[in-house]
């Protein structure tokens, strides 16, 4: 085939390349609204929040030399109800250390929520202004972050945690971070 005839195939090749590239956007499970965190591998932002139910304050200084998970939730957040069985299961099996941050919520509503759906958290801080959430880059509850022993954010999940996320992301992450 002469190069001139081969040139007629160019549009076909270009189309195929474009089609393959664009088909990624149609892949099942791809959600363009899920954003990567800007804070991965950066130190977790400092915070010091009032504790829920008159508990001690929750500060990032509490996360010393431990792999911890921080879950932003709210009583008014419907997907938070959906993920609560998953969180409760993790807490029962003692798989992770989980702290809660109650995002823009009334403390009495949050307490009712925890009575109804269970309290999987070691301790809960109240983020009334939403500033701690902004410092973490939260754009909608629930969101969950994993912080390693050196205080760096290593993982973030937007939306409710599912058994699938636990199996495919959290367990490998714990292994990678060397949880004992």
């Amino acid at each position, binding site marked *: 085939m002469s190069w001139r005839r081969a040139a007629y195939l160019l549009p076909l090749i270009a189309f195929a390349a474009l089609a393959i590239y664009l088909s990624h956007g149609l892949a099942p499970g791809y959600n363009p609204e899920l*954003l990567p965190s*800007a804070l991965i591998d950066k130190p977790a932002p400092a915070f010091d929040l009032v504790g829920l139910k008159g508990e001690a304050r929750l500060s990032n200084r509490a996360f010393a030399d431990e792999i911890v998970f921080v879950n932003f939730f709210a009583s008014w957040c419907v997907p938070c109800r959906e993920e609560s069985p998953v969180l409760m299961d993790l807490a029962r099996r003692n798989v992770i250390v989980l702290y809660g941050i109650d995002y823009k919520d009334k403390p009495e509503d949050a307490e009712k929520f925890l009575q109804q759906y269970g309290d999987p958290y070691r301790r809960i801080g109240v983020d009334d202004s*939403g*500033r701690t959430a*902004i410092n973490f*880059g939260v*754009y*909608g509850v629930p969101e969950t972050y994993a912080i390693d022993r050196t205080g760096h954010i290593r993982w973030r999940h937007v939306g409710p945690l599912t058994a699938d996320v636990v199996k495919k992301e959290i367990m490998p992450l714990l292994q990678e971070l060397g949880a004992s």
Partner: protein
Amino acid sequence: MIRALIAAAILLGVAQAAFAVEPSEMLANPALEARAEAIGKQLRCLVCQNESIEDSGADLAHDLRVLIRERLKAGDSDAQAIKYVTDRYGDFVLLKPPVEPATYLLWFSPFVILAVGAAGAWFYLRRRPTPPDEPLDLNQRRQLERLLIDDQ
């Protein structure tokens, strides 16, 4: 009719703008407020992802507008205030993506496609046989005259 439609569109636009930014958020200093609005228009609201935080009625957009105004009042430059937000939410919040290696394809591919098309057109036009530049012979001239007379 068209005028009424345009008027309605303008009114709707104004109403929407007035809805998003609440008067209580605005800064007393008009110069600072203008800067805050200009910054807000460049930042994407993460809840309704195709609106700027200046246009969005979402709660998070409100918080970010207030935050930017606080940063400016504290003496931040425009770039510092924008960096404060991108440090937390990433470059995705910029409605106009920065020109950097990861976005070269986005910024320059239209020009590459234009160049490829121009090259193709140039080769095509160059290859097309040019008609011979010879004077008409007697027969052809008669034919032409006949055609012109028929036309009249």
